[in-house]
């Protein structure tokens, strides 16, 4: 019983990592209607910039704010420079552009900062939360920030004109253009926001998994899984999906006898696919009805 509780808590802590990343995934999905396979690498690169600033003596929060801003600009720049020219190309072609971006960021980070793992500071401290050994203050902080971003996103997309315009631009670019929305800039804005959220995710994840060029490889995988499980059109669902993936994986690895440990990831993925078969648009996603 104690083991169950511990594994659930550890799963929630790890799930917070996935949830954070899943949010960035959903953000880009809202803006461009598909996934960005280089998202993890963008977050990793942002985190390295933050690390470099801190090494140069910039205080944590200064570096944090600077990197969120730099990432925002960087995201917009990537959209304008790399993706604008091929925005009419088939989606598969854009996918290859993401793969190319992945390679460029990963390889450059390795060349600039090398592959030795680096410690990244946390603003929340590392002690156990409330004296218990179930979850650390950093884990709790990460969950808190994830939920905060979720609320902000919710307010932005539901309440602000800009948010509505962005959703419209993604869902129906032609009509959005007709009502005077600058669709191109909405997409760029979406890129910027998702890069910023990714940067925050990266800076929260790095203290746990350590900073190195390949740190997001596995995280993005689980982040996608979480986002898809929860439903790509629902930020709340994505966060829940992220937590669920963390917990499911731990429980499968611990309690399924015989092959659970070795096939932990496989079992978790089978369970996610099984959920999708029942709800093909994710747990909380709306299925979009398209007119013929």
């Amino acid at each position, binding site marked *: 019983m104690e083991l169950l509780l511990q594994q659930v808590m550890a799963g929630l802590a790890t799930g917070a990592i996935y949830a954070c990343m899943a949010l960035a995934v959903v953000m880009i999905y809202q803006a461009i209607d598909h996934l960005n396979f280089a998202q993890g690498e963008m977050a990793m690169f942002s985190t390295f910039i933050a690390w470099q600033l801190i090494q140069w003596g910039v205080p944590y929060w200064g570096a944090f704010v600077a990197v969120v801003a730099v990432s925002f600009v960087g995201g917009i720049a990537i959209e304008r420079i790399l993706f604008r020219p091929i925005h009419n190309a088939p989606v598969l072609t854009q996918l290859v552009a993401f793969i190319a971006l992945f390679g460029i960021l990963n*390889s450059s980070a390795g060349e600039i900062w090398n592959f030795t793992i680096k410690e990244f500071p946390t603003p929340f401290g590392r002690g156990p939360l409330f004296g218990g050994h179930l979850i650390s203050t950093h884990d709790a902080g990460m969950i808190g920030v994830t939920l905060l971003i979720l609320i902000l996103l919710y307010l932005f997309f539901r309440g602000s004109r800009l948010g509505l315009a962005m959703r419209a631009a993604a869902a129906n670019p032609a009509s959005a253009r007709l009502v005077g929305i600058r669709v191109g800039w909405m997409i760029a804005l979406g890129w910027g926001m998702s890069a910023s959220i990714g940067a925050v995710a990266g800076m929260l994840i790095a203290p746990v998994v350590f900073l190195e060029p390949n740190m997001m490889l596995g995280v993005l995988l689980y982040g996608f899984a979480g986002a898809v499980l929860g439903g790509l059109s629902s930020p709340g669902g994505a966060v829940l999906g992220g937590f669920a993936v963390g917990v499911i994986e731990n429980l499968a690895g611990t309690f399924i006898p015989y092959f659970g440990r070795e096939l932990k990831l496989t079992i978790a993925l089978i369970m*996610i696919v099984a959920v999708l078969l029942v709800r093909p648009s994710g747990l909380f996603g709306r299925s979009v009805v398209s007119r013929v």
Partner: protein
Amino acid sequence: MSAPDDIATKQSVPFDAAEASVGSAATARATPRYVWALAAAVLAALLPLVATNFVLFQLTLVMVYGLAILGLNLLTGFNGQFSLGHSAFYGIGAYTAAILMDHWDVAYFYTLPAAGVVCFVVGFLFGLPALRLQNLYLALATFALATAMPQILKFGPLEPLTGGVQGIALIKPDAPLRLPLNPDQWLYYFTLAVLLLLMAAAWNLVHSRSGRAIMAIRDHPIAAASMGVNTALYKTLTFGVSALYTGIAGALGAIVVQFVAPDSFNFLLSVSFLVGLVIGGVGSIPGSIVGGLFVLYVPNIAESISTGLSGAVYGLIMLLVIYVMPSGAAGFARLAAAQSAKARQTWINRSERRSP
């Protein structure tokens, strides 16, 4: 654009439309396609006379990857279903061949149909749940398959069969019938024969009644269904056939490389196939071979430019290529052909006008 707008269908227009237009504009003048195909085949058959063993080995690998990409193309290019999981089918094919050869001393040429059958069954079965899923959700399901495959191949209880983390080493086959060929030359011819056979089969499939049904599902699933196409059956069958192609490629790959290990068949291999598919041309059979050439040779070029930044250089080359040819080499070739046909047509018109 609504969300379920497929990942591949946007691409679909150029293939048939362009083919039709090129076909009509160039019927009189341009060299028929099969002449080109024949010329390429003859050239390929003569190559071992001049090329070194190492170059032949590389070209054999190009054909193997080309065949795997062709498999993916059948599913994604012609049927509009998205897959990040083809490394798994490639791996299953490779392991089927390796296990048969290593444990039961089955001759290498029998392992290809065996790998094909196994992968067809796995692909077909995987195609059933895939029916429920679309686009990104299907992408995730296939992605899961790719990620899970190395873990399954390493799985302890299967170790007596798969060799676990150590993998299986194989022996290279000699040429049969005392043909005066060394193993590399022989494998090259063997692979070439298999490739040509399967390419011809793919061409026939695509241009058959079933092929039209498969593409109709890609272009307009609802219309296809209402015209009486059994979409579910065709989609799962396409999944099976696609896996069969990639599986045979995997078996060939295992024979050529003489070694299989679980971590070779990871998600990155699927990414390679996708890159080859897009660069070669989505929905183009010969384009798949161009894709094979790209994924084998371009990383070497990138490496020769910079060792430390080879990944970045490879990425930049990819970007450059897709800027120049957004619909792949095949699309580029079609465009060029259409342009030259148009130019020829205007030239003919002009000269006709000039001489009354």
